């Protein structure tokens, strides 16, 4: 296999706040390592406040206080030179953004500037990368929109004149107009209704195949992962708890938390009542010792309460952080 496009190692990013004498540390991303290959769609799953969004913010270097990166590195490899995104200058980062690394954001409602026409946003984001005179640039944008089955007159609309699904399609067009190698997609379908969602997913898949980009796709919706992603990482309470090929994970999840996530998916003809997990996800300002899942885990033992389980490769390409993994099931 060729060199991965993205290598995250030992990443640790915390929120540190202090107001009126109360200081807090929220360990949103705690010691995460993963890598993503060229042309791969990598899914990131986990319930809300598991640290997914913080992880990809850190990967995109969209870090603002109180979020701080304490340890680890995020290295992209565009062409043949690796770049650590947290250790390059603002200008160098500006050259990478949108040309090589683009972003589709959660909550399509608000990502477009509400008081300006869509055209201006395309100019602001892509003009300097495409590097052609204005009329030609606009033609490139129009062609791209048409390829994505969007009418070019959306360029003259204000965001509020477009529907939610339309806005999300426009942002996908915006994110892919420079043909980037890597796309970060943060819950791009969450705010949409199911029918629109399907269309948007198909659109992402189509453009990804055409461009050959890698995508890190974040959603808590396991059904979307099952349909779209090649590999899957499961996060719980700021940690990666399982990672492997999507098909393998769905067939035989090894971490009890993943097993629960998959078991709670509705299936056709399924009549048995779903079992919920006891308790709530831990407070990341004061996480439980040992394995962070142990208070809710049906398989927890003494060691789980004392020590944090390391990520271990249980079968080729399938890793999990658990002392008592679910049994392996032969393919």
């Amino acid at each position, binding site marked *: 296999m060729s060199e991965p496009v993205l290598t995250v190692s030992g990443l640790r990013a915390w929120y540190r706040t202090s107001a009126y*004498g109360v200081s807090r540390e929220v360990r949103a991303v705690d010691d995460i390592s993963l890598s993503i290959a060229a042309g791969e769609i990598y899914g990131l799953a986990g319930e809300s406040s598991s640290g997914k969004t913080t992880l990809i913010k850190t990967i995109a270097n969209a870090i603002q206080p109180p979020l701080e990166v304490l340890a680890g590195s995020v290295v992209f490899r565009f062409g043949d030179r690796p770049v650590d995104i947290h250790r390059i200058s603002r200008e160098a980062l500006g050259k990478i953004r949108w040309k090589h690394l683009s972003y589709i954001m959660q909550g399509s409602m608000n990502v477009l500037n509400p008081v300006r026409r869509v055209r201006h946003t395309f100019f602001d984001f892509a003009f300097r990368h495409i590097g052609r005179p204005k009329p030609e640039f606009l033609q490139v944008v129009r062609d791209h929109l048409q390829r994505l089955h969007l009418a070019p007159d959306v360029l003259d609309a204000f965001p509020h004149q477009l529907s939610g699904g339309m806005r999300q399609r426009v942002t996908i067009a915006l994110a892919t107009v420079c043909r980037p190698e890597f796309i970060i997609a943060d819950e791009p379908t969450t705010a949409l209704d199911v029918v629109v969602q399907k269309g948007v997913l198909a659109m992402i898949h189509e453009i990804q195949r055409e461009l050959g980009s890698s995508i890190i796709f974040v959603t808590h919706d396991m059904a979307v992962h099952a349909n779209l992603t090649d590999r899957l990482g499961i996060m719980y309470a700021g940690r990666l708890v399982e990672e492997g090929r999507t098909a393998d994970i769905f067939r035989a999840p090894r971490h009890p938390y993943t097993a629960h996530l998959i078991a709670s998916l509705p299936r056709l003809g399924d009549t048995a009542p779903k079992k919920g997990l006891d308790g709530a996800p831990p407070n990341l300002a004061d996480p439980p010792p040992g394995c962070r899942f142990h208070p809710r885990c049906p398989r927890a033992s003494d060691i789980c309460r004392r020590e944090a389980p390391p990520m271990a490769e249980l079968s080729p390409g399938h890793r999990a952080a658990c002392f008592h993994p679910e049994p392996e099931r032969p393919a």
Partner: protein
Amino acid sequence: MGRILIDLLRFNRQFAVGLVLLAIVLGFALLSFFSPYPPNDSFVVPPDVPPSWAYPMGTTSRGQDLFWLLTFSIRNTLLFGVTVALISRLLALVIGLVAGYCGGLVDRALMSINDTFIVIPLFPILVLFYFVMKDHMSWGLLALMMACLGWAYDARLIRSVALSLRTREFTETGIFSGMSMRQILVEEHLPYVLPIVFSTTMNNINWSIGLEVTLSVLGFTDINTPTIGVLIYWANQHTALVAGIWWWIFFPVLLVILAFIGLFLLAVSMNEYIDPRSRLGRSGG
């Protein structure tokens, strides 16, 4: 409440400075109760004496000891501000809470009237008021008039908070358990808007004192009740600046500026404290 005060004092410099300034001004006003002279007596001390040990702020051309006169003046000025603030609070609360609670047409009608009062230039109206009242003008009447004109801005703020309370669960619980609108507003909603009421009170006091000083300096109030504005009015009448009696102007202006800045800092810091974003940072977890 006590804890909030201590927190604010320790971690918010604006609040601490504001409180100190206001304490100085208040302390000065309280001294008026120990004054050796009644406020309206003139020619009790030699006129036009510069500040000295005997007369720390000098004396006026009307033979008054400026120090003691100032204690009365600032007391009346503050009292005026508080009176206007209290009366207009009542109006602002009722209108803001009702508009927010009822929503819909009632809200739009009330806010239209409200915006009207925000936009109308009040100063000419107050001057007109003085013009037709002339000698009948009194401290209390002016306070009442200003309260009737000066509630609108704060009513809008209160209404915006009340509007968000309307959709909260406890409001519905209240309605379903048969509480009247008055009960819900007073028992359920009032506590939520009180912080904002506190902060707007400071601003409102500032506003009314400012207008009172302005009207008084022009002689458009009852010029026989000593206030800061009236004090400057008399100084101007005696052309104190031209005559070089600078202290007659300097000390009242200084004191009232301290009061303005103090009140303003309190308002700003309280506002910041009740801002949901700073609240979020504070809530331990």
